[in-house]
């Protein structure tokens, strides 16, 4: 039996005002570009979240007890649904009610907290867990870290926290000659399952689907199913992990992405011995083939599959060091609004916008960057952070 695990990432950051200037420091405590956040969320809801949720609901009804998918929705995305488009949230709740959809745990603020503050990491994970319980009536047992950032230490921590499954990138540097199409176990753990993204097949959908220069263009459900089917005998698990916005937003409706997805289960089911499962179900069917040692950080970003999209240049490092430096002072304020504001500034996107790698993956970065340049992103973030520091100073929490 070969299983297909679909996991879709849903995330929207709270973007900062593009004109938050030096003169705002100490005076203006409203940092977010509400207008942009609202309109982006509603645009993506219209193009992606609403139609894709409906499409998945149809598929689930068509294949009761069979067709399954999983989501990880960041807490900041959930908050924006609640504020700007509750209908999207209702559809996700409908999906949850089918029993064929799993909701995965992550850091509430889509943050890099694991790298900078274990305390903050655990608090955010707990917050997100509670949010899932409240909204979707599930208690998650699967964890995915922001941007699939992963390290042996993360796995050890997660096992201690009681998780059964963790998800990351099937990066070449950790797999070597091995295939991502099996269940693995993180080095040093005893019960934890490790799911590795099949980036070839995932990216065929997420990135290459509409690329007319691609030799396999156009991609049909049948063609894709035939690639999946060909793994039979040399794989057990096909992990298709991608941004949910692939559907209708990164790949527009007129590329045929919705028709593709609609036809996919039928094409897969043409061969027996193929099924769709969720990450929590993997241990019902498989035992880990071997342990995977990841003594350095990996992620699913860019060609390097490392942390350089968020960290490593002085802009990013200076900003992220400073924001974590004030953690204690922020928490000592016991001011929930202030703590929440600070946490929203931990969202990884802020540091992604400061990335200066314009060569290999510059296009992708530019697409997602609301600011003119990474330097603008830094200057705006620094201004906001300085205002937050001013507030803490006024409260005598910082010198």
């Amino acid at each position, binding site marked *: 039996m070969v299983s297909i695990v679909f996991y879709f990432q849903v995330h929207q950051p709270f973007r900062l005002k593009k004109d938050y200037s*030096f003169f705002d420091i100490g005076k203006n405590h409203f940092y977010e570009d509400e207008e942009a956040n609202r309109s982006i969320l509603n645009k993506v809801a219209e193009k992606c979240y609403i139609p894709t949720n409906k499409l998945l609901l149809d598929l689930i009804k068509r294949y009761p007890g069979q067709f399954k998918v999983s989501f990880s929705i960041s807490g900041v995305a959930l908050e924006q649904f609640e504020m700007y488009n509750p209908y999207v949230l209702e559809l996700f709740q409908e999906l949850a009610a089918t029993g064929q959809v799993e909701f995965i745990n992550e850091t509430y603020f889509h943050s890099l907290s694991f790298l900078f503050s274990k305390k903050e990491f655990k608090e955010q994970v707990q917050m997100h867990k509670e949010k899932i319980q409240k909204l979707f009536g599930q208690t998650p047992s699967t964890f995915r870290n922001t941007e699939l950032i992963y390290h042996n230490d993360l796995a050890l921590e997660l096992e201690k926290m009681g998780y059964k499954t963790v998800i990351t990138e099937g990066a070449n540097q950790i797999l070597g000659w091995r295939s991502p199409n099996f269940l693995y176990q993180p080095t040093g753990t005893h019960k934890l399952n490790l799911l590795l993204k099949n980036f070839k097949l995932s990216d065929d959908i997420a990135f290459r689907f509409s690329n007319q220069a691609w030799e396999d263009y156009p991609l049909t459900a049948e063609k894709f199913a035939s690639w999946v089917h060909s793994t039979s005998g040399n794989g057990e698990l096909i992990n298709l992990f991608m941004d949910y916005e692939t559907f209708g937003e990164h790949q527009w409706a007129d590329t045929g992405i919705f028709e593709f997805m609609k036809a996919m289960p039928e094409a897969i089911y043409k061969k027996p011995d193929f099924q769709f499962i969720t990450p929590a179900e993997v241990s019902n069917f498989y035992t880990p083939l071997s342990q995977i040692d990841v003594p350095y950080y990996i992620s699913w970003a860019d060609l390097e599959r490392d942390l350089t999209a968020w960290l490593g240049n002085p802009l990013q490092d200076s900003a992220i060091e400073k924001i974590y430096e004030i953690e204690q002072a922020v928490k000592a304020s016991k001011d929930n609004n202030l703590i929440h504001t600070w946490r929203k500034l931990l969202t990884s996107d802020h540091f992604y916008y400061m990335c200066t790698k314009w060569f290999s993956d510059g296009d992708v970065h530019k697409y997602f960057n609301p600011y003119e340049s990474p*330097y603008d992103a830094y200057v705006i973030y620094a201004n906001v952070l300085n205002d937050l520091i001013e507030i803490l100073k006024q409260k005598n929490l910082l010198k």
Partner: protein
Amino acid sequence: MFGWEFPPIISGGLGTASYGITRGLHNSGVELAFVMPTKRGQKIDVPFKIIAADEVHLIKRYESVISEMKNIDVSVFEKKFTIAPYFTKEEYTEYLHQFRIENKQKRLELEQEGLLHFTGNYGKELMSEVHRYGIIGEILGYGEDCDIIHAHDWLTFIAGVAAKHASGKPLVIHVHATEIDRSGEHVNKEVFEIEKYGMEHADKIIAVSHFTKNIIVSKYGIDADKIEVVHNAVEKKHRLERLGIEKNVKEKIVLFLGRVTMQKGPDYFVEAAYKVLQKYKNVRFVMAGSGDLLTRMILRVASLRMLDKFHFTGFLKGIEVEKMYATSDVYVMPSVSEPFGISPFEALLYDVPAIISKQSGVAEVLDNAIKVDFWDIDRLAEMMLMLLEDDELAKEVAEKSKGDMEFIHWDFAGEKIKIVYKTILNN
């Protein structure tokens, strides 16, 4: 040019500004006559004509206007001017009496031999003096030969407009302060109306700052295109309230303002800032401007981990520039080479002491500014520290440099005003 104060008869900044502006205009080759309410018998030694309103003999003036106009078709004036119908001595005197009756509150004392009385003060007679000054404006409009009429602040606007109507010449009004600045919420309606009247009748308005320009546009409903900005110097203790701003951070601010290019030496500023921060914490550095080195400077500041001490504003214009100078405590111009460099002057307009590179032309003029070699980061940092740690010294440096630049500043202002005149005359 109508003013209210002129040295040595001054009680506020208006007199100093009037002196500077007339001097600047004179040096730019503009011929002018300055009108003021009274000289109080003092002698004012300037290379242009001073007319004291309380020495303008209305009857004699009037007669000479008549004689000059003998050959002119009077009907031309009848349509335009208030005085025009009173073309006999008797009728004119009657007009003045009429004026008095109509303005019972504004007592009009026609003193002996046809002189009007002026104190030139700001006492309770002020409003009637302002109206009396209007009569002088009108009569001078007939009698004095000029191309442009220029009036400073609301006190002289009635006179300026009257002179414009009498002479048919264009009017420039110069706004040093508005009633909104002076009184905030509790605006004197009468003063406000006179200001608005002046602004509406003016052909061009000169505002002393972008801040003032904004007020003229937003509170008085005047078209922004009609307003030019020519900066006046502001005293440190008044500058924030004058510009209606509050400093947004507590720390002192050291400012670099200019293009962020190799020639301007921004990198020396960044390195020196880092050195200062090792010894002194109550300070923030601001780099205001844009240019091809900006990204490098941002990277460097991030590398030095000065995120909470060093800020970038990007390119500033108008009111933001004023705000930036006004909130700064030290100005630094570390130019590698600079033919002249006007920015330290601008900083000094806001009483900000300047550290300038020896390699800038302006170093020759500002004897009292602090000068360093642009490449000498240690010395630059040392000088910044010195000014930051010693308020008295900073004040002294600013004051002395301001003395160095005063005349040069007014020459610049004079040139700018001359350009304003030229555009009016060319239209």
